[in-house]
């Protein structure tokens, strides 16, 4: 529904208007301290050339050696077209382009080019700086037996990391610019012949629809690419590991890398992707499958345990084994709060502790966890504010939640865990069942780019097994790519 009081906005095209002249470019960057100009008079010329660039965006050595030095030292035709001379070797730069309008010239400047204003036109030379963070080990997706490199903030470095792994000429990289103010380069990557040919086009259309001032976080990309936005579960996989992006590309998915975001984005996503850890393919297939089953089990425990405990302790006491019921009753003696309030309160406290630990510096964060978890927890039990049974239930739910390898998925489970606990406190197992059914129905209704979110579970068959979708199969036996991705070449190997 459109907002009634929302000010009118229309996308301005072109974003920068005016004639492409030296005066207009100076006016455009007026007040920008990093906008630098230089006038240079080639040998035999009466009037100087105007050169401009943005300091910090260009590498000074390149500008001096590849552009200014040849302009200053080499003879340059005066009467004939000097721009053509520059395009054919007058400057020693790799990328020299003739510019026709003000907007493209301004964009080139902010991308790290210098602009040379000649009597017969404007030429830009790419002399961008390559200052960037060095490729380092992934901070959040460590692997003992795998590669140790991770994406950085530089787009070209990131694509090179992929290109070094996938040396096929069929690896296609298509550039898009996103963000009205940031003009962030985003590159769409796929393997021609493996990915569904419609998929890159659909993603490209979605990218073109992004109408944002800026693209500086992953959310700005994800929330435009996926619909409906009401689901809290992640639908695209963001990873800092190039090898994981390569796996996705080889399955027939597409990837996006954006300048300034040290992550690759693989899409379309499905639920099984978010439960696989990077190291799964490095371990023996049986061990990896067992761990995967453990993760699925943990998923249900973290999601349902607090709600189930509330339901049985408040509505269905007869479901609890007698000895356990006796222990729980003994532990609940003198606790002034109802069980439901205890569990929900402790769940919220657990989330607060977790959030506090994340926001603080690592060393202080650990202290907060220890003080919060151990000292306050023990004191709360001793003071009979919460019962030990409830502490155990919430702790088990929290710990099992950490086995989910993808943080966004884990966050979604945390939110639903709280919701299911509230439903269970209202209507017991009935509330829990209805909530779970609603969640299942909701997830079953989610699909991105024609791929159902729950597809490996929605249709259990040989195809899903072969495609390594749910459990890890021996790699030589995984001969097919996932059917739901509608890949151009389904077979991985003979």
């Amino acid at each position: 529904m459109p907002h009634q009081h929302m000010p009118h906005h229309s996308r301005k095209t072109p974003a920068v208007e005016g004639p492409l002249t030296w005066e207009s470019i100076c006016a455009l960057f007026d007040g920008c301290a990093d906008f630098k100009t230089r006038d240079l008079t080639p040998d035999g010329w009466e009037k100087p050339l105007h050169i401009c660039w943005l300091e910090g965006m260009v590498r000074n050595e390149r500008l001096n050696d590849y552009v200014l030095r040849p302009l200053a030292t080499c003879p340059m035709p005066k009467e004939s077209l000097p721009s053509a001379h520059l395009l054919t070797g007058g400057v020693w730069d790799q990328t020299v382009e003739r510019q026709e309008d003000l907007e493209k010239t301004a964009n080139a400047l902010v991308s790290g080019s210098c602009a040379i204003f000649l009597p017969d036109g404007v030429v830009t030379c790419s002399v961008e700086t390559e200052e960037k963070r060095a490729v380092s080990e992934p901070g959040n997706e460590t692997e003992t037996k795998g590669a140790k490199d991770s994406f950085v903030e530089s787009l070209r470095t990131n694509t090179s990391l992929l290109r070094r792994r996938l040396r096929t000429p069929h690896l296609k990289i298509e550039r898009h610019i996103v963000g009205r103010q940031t003009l962030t380069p985003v590159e769409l990557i796929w393997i021609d012949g493996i990915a569904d040919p419609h998929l890159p086009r659909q993603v490209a259309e979605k990218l073109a629809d992004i109408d944002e001032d800026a693209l500086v976080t992953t959310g700005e990309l994800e929330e435009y690419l996926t619909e409906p936005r009401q689901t809290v579960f992640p639908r695209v996989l963001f990873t800092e590991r190039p090898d994981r992006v390569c796996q996705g590309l080889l399955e027939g998915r597409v990837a996006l890398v954006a300048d300034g975001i040290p992550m690759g984005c693989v899409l379309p996503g499905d639920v099984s992707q978010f439960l696989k850890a990077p190291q799964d393919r490095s371990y023996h297939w049986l061990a990896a499958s067992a761990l995967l089953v453990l993760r699925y089990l943990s998923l249900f425990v973290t999601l349902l345990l607090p709600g189930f405990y509330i339901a049985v302790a408040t509505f269905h006491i007869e479901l609890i084994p007698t000895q356990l019921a006796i222990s729980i009753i003994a532990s609940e003696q003198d606790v002034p709060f109802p069980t439901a309030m205890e569990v929900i309160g402790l769940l919220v406290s657990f989330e607060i502790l977790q959030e506090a630990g994340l926001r603080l510096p690592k060393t202080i964060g650990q202290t907060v966890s220890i003080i919060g978890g151990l000292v306050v927890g023990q004191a709360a039990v001793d003071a009979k504010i919460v019962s030990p049974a409830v502490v155990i239930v919430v702790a088990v739910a929290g710990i099992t939640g950490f086995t989910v390898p993808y943080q966004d998925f884990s966050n979604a489970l945390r939110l639903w865990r709280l919701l299911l606990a509230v439903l269970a406190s209202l209507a017991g197992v009935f509330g829990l069942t209805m909530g779970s059914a609603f969640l299942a129905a909701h997830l079953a209704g989610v699909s991105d780019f024609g791929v159902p979110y729950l597809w490996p579970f929605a249709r259990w068959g040989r195809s899903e097994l072969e495609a390594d979708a749910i459990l890890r199969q021996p790699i030589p036996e995984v001969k097919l790519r996932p059917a739901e991705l509608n890949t151009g070449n389904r077979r991985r190997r003979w």
Partner: protein
Amino acid sequence: MVRRRVLALVAGAAALYLIGTWSGDGLLPKAKDIAEVKLMRTMAVDKGEENGLLLTVSGDVQKDSPDSQTRPPMILNQPALTVFGGCTRLQENSEGDPEFGHLAECVVGEEYARRGIEDLADFLERDVSMRMETKLFVVAGDTGEAALRGAASQNSAITDYLTSISKNPGLGGRNPWPYTMREYISQQEDNGVALLPALTLEDNPDFDPSDREKQPEKILKTAGFALFQEQRLTGFLTGEESQGVSLLTGNDVLDAFEITLKSGTVAGIRLIDTKCRYETRFAPDGTLEAVTLRLIVRGDLNQLTGAADPMDEETLREMEQAFCAQIHTVSQAALSRSQRENADFLHLRRELVCRYPLHATGLTEHWDTWFPNVALNVTVEGQIQRSYDIDRPAPEKEVRRGGE
């Protein structure tokens, strides 16, 4: 989207209605926090005034916190016309909130049992929180309430004792095994006869009247089986009869036998396996004339007190013959009682129908008239197979026959 939401709301409302939560009391089920409830573990049902009954329930030993000292179990009682009414009124009138979902045992007094326990069976069968796995016991010569109160002390409740004998029925030697309500109903449905374990109350010699809470005033002991015919208690099976029932129904294969040999040596033998084969004789007109139960038993020699050598062939022969004779005695006692009461609690008819399908119709239709006149015999073949000395294994021998 709107249509889907409306459909979801309608489906949710239908689900609420169908599961019965949409009642006049409110939309959502009624909560009962676990911290508020008092778990009742054992229920006693006794004969009340006129046609009424007296319901008594007992919980576990009470503990205010894991580290606090224990207190005697909470015992509540309530006269009522029905078990259901008694339970409901107990929940309404008690200070705590008695919870009956964890009742593990039900004890009935003899007087009430003689009047008939069909109303109790009916209640346990229908009530949503009760369990068909509830074990039933009959107190011989006393009331269930007396058993609950007598066994209660600071350190014990009747539940502890009943749970103990339920877990180890055979290892006690001659204890009856416990029957659940499900098994009781199943027996009644089969032929109108059922057995339930019987208990007796005896004075506790350690009871100190000055500190009444420390030790229980009474001790519960097993006392064979209570025999129910058409839901009413008609008698008790004790001693050899009880042991025979355990043996013939295969529920007590770990029973212990003590045999005194001619030399004065006493052997302790544990029965470890029983097989029963049925041999029958039918008259030309199809009438059942005789049934012979051929028992093949095996025992372990667990103790030998005296001078006899267990490896001696003659000693073994004597032990096996005595062992078979004892088994014959208890089996014949159970069979005779069954015939005398015209109560087929050994389920002979069911066994014979399975083994002689050609006579199934006759056995089913005429059993009540045939059974009192059938010649019932037992033969026992037994072997004692274990000795103390593993370097001198018992010699290979034929299975001995004895006790016919």
